[in-house]
């Protein structure tokens, strides 16, 4: 087993405070690196890159770019198993959400040392989240046909990216044959108006 050298020359020692200030990251500093989260993580079990213990250590050391540009934070499936097993109540699933929000914000950062690029996995997942939110904003409830359609179009890049949707054809066809795809939008003007008002106010408070 080789030992990895960590270069701390470009470390941002304020990064951990930034995560703690974000909603959901409050318990970050309680972590004592016992690795219970990694042992129970189904994604790590399937042989992917995600290693919760390592992510927390990187955040505490201030390896800002390494964390925010990694695939790892976008591969979490949000099953709350690590949150449940953690003896210190660090709530890693919420930390992952906080890290994702910081990563998305940093792509538009004007400060050059803080600007990052999202990996391919990150772009896809963020695109999906965005389509979901837009669908809620548009109709008050999600309309799967519209949401998935727009995700396949924009999420993978127009025009050829949309062709990547062929992977999902068997799934869509299955749903279609069982009459499980809604072709009409969920029309409920009261829910729609009030949800839009909530989104608008939350955005103004956030800024």
């Amino acid at each position, binding site marked *: 087993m080789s030992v990895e050298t960590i270069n701390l020359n470009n470390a941002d020692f304020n990064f951990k405070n930034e995560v703690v200030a974000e909603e959901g990251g409050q318990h970050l500093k309680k972590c004592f690196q016992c690795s219970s989260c990694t042992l129970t993580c189904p994604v790590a079990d399937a042989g992917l890159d995600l290693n919760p213990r390592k992510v927390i250590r990187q955040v505490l050391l201030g390896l800002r770019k390494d964390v925010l540009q990694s695939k790892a934070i976008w591969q979490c499936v949000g099953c709350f198993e690590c949150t449940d097993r953690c003896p210190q109540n660090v709530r890693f699933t919420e930390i992952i959400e906080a890290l994702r929000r910081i990563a998305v914000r940093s792509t538009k950062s004007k400060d050059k040392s803080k600007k990052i690029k999202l990996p391919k996995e990150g772009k896809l997942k963020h695109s999906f989240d965005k389509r979901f*939110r837009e669908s809620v904003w548009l109709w008050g409830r999600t309309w799967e046909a519209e949401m998935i359609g727009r995700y396949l179009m924009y999420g993978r890049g127009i025009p050829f990216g949309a062709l990547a949707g062929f992977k999902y054809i068997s799934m869509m066809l299955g749903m279609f044959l069982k009459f499980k795809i809604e072709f009409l939008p969920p029309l409920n003007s009261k829910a729609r108006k009030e949800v839009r008002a*909530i989104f608008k*106010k939350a955005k103004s408070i956030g800024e």
Partner: protein
Amino acid sequence: MKVGYYPGCSLHKVAKEYNRSIFKISEKLGIDLEELKDWNCCGALEVKATNHLAGEGIVARNLAIAEQQGLNSLVAVCPACSYQLIQTNANMVQDSGKAAKINSLMDNKEYTPDSVKPMHYLQLLRDEIGLEKIKELIKPDNPLKGRKGVAYYGCFCNRPSDVIQFEDPDNPTFMDELINVVGAEAQYFPMKTKCCGATQLLVAKPTVETLTGNIIVNALEAGAEFIVLACQMCALAIDGQQKQALKRVGGGKAKIPVLYFSQLLGIGMGLKYKSLGLGSNYVSPKKLMKPIKV
């Protein structure tokens, strides 16, 4: 007994058989489900992932509607919805400053924390109805008698356990008890709480297929003839993607029917195949409907 019912976005079409069977068994059990008026999406995990405050605001709106309608308890059958409702209610009880902030988002509604008790339908069955009452309604000669089944709980039925406070997160047993009540035999199933990853189905399909495949192979090894679950997203992965998932992990060509717990109870109560929407399940459960020969 009157309870509020929050269906959630997928129950009207993507999982219509779940919705239909829930109403059928509620009728038999004497539960009067009252759907919320003008409910909106709970935002699942995705809205919170982009804007946390807005995510909590839209959940609080549903709770406020339930309070306006004078309901004491609110059941959701989608575990992601019930998790969001329980989590937001708990957050507002703990932190009154946060509650005021969330309430200020809504123009003409206000939610008093803890005035409505949100929960999953399974919790209602366990705490308010009880196994004894269910047992009285089960027909002794139902086709599931003597068959072997496994119960799959997934993530949000029990996790995070400090928020949901329903069952032991490592070894939940209530759905196993439901299987036994119907007359089938619940098998030992180690992967009952492992995640199937269905929330990432459109983003990282290979990961989901690996996770789902492992669960199905484990169920087959346990000798199960059917899987019982309580989440329409899990059903989309375990039922809808079964063939691809088994192919991914090299699990052969087996086909195992997947039932919702409401369909399981419905079959046990002798309700009709069509009224439970069993025809809409991806893997046909028709072979379960004939009594086994001894």
